[in-house]
């Protein structure tokens, strides 16, 4: 076994290097239901985290892993955005397929020595609680931190609290 390379923080100066054109508009080979996910990242003092990068990965609208082709101009199913100074971000994508539609999320920032990994469900509370991945949380109120709120048709709100009251559930990895 080769020994894994340790993680280090992304630091504060990644923006120009990691910014992708239209990174917040997730594309697919398939068509589907457009959704817009907005939120805000805050720290243990409730202050906005204005220098984070958020990546998302999800199934296609048909519920299969997104496929790509060499002729594509960008990856399918993958989103990458940076938070604004006020900690806010927006991802425009298509509703993922599956019984409990969700996006896998990785958060990078100064002060994060390794990425935080979590998930956001664009599904009802019951569907999320039935997801085997969340079995350990099925009866915990904390599962709510992984469920986006539908604010109007096609629009969802999901805030991320890195630390403190209402702290988002993050995954061990």
């Amino acid at each position, binding site marked *: 076994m080769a020994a894994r390379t340790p993680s280090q923080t992304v630091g504060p100066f990644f923006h120009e290097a990691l910014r992708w054109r239209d990174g917040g508009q997730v594309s697919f080979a398939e068509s589907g239901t457009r959704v817009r996910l907005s939120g805000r990242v805050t720290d243990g003092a409730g202050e906005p985290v204005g220098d984070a990068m958020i990546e998302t990965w999800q199934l296609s609208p048909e519920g299969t892993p997104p*496929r790509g082709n060499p002729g594509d101009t960008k990856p399918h199913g993958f989103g990458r955005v940076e938070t604004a100074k006020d900690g806010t971000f927006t991802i425009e994508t298509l509703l993922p397929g599956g019984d409990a539609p969700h996006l896998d999320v990785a958060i990078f920032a100064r002060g994060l020595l390794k990425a935080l990994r979590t998930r956001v469900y664009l599904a009802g509370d019951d569907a999320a609680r039935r997801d085997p991945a969340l079995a*350990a949380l099925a009866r915990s109120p904390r599962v709510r931190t992984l469920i986006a709120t539908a604010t109007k048709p096609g629009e969802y709100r999901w805030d991320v609290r890195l630390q403190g009251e209402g702290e988002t559930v993050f995954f061990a990895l």
Partner: protein
Amino acid sequence: MNDMTRPDIDPPYLHPEYRSTRLRSPKEPLLELPPGTLDVPGAYVPRGFARNGENDLTIHGQSLPIGERMVVSGRLVDESGRPIRDSLVEIWQANAAGRYDHPGDRHDAPLDPNFHGLGRTFTDAEGRYRFMTIKPGSYTWQNHPFAWRPQHIHFSLLGNAPIQRLITQMYFPGDPLLDIDPIYNSIPDAAARPRLVAQLALETGVEGVALGYRFDIVLAGAQATPLGI
């Protein structure tokens, strides 16, 4: 379950000596996912995503950037030693004076109009990558009095599965600042830290032009195979 006898490879979220971790590290226990949850095929990034020349950071000005020209190259493999092919590698770094070409960098050191410090490439069929650049300078930061970061290049590796996603930093051999850098020393296992230090490898450079450094990267083992073609 993790093997409790193996020291953690990655730093903890809370490492108080690195001040910014104090309010950004989760305090609640982390949720263990069923094994394999993130060991699934990841994003396929089309080759055209990195353009010709993006693996040479020294050719984007009117003339050469100031600094010691160097080649950094290596292999991207998984824990079983298998090459991670056709995978996106993104790097960024300070210029030779220790200044990032970034609006947020207020360090009192000059910008170099011939150096922006951004690079992208893909690994080849053997997992190899290669960049031409200049050696970055050290710079001071606000973490504690007289704090200076060791010279480093930031690396972002997409891998071929979500579990492989890694952002890290490459350091240079013999840098006296390594011993006192809270970010480098956040890695709990002292024996794992030197894996982030490149090795001088003269023959991987360009004779008469650029010094060669070798930096191999090992991502988490993945059963997944890349999608796409």
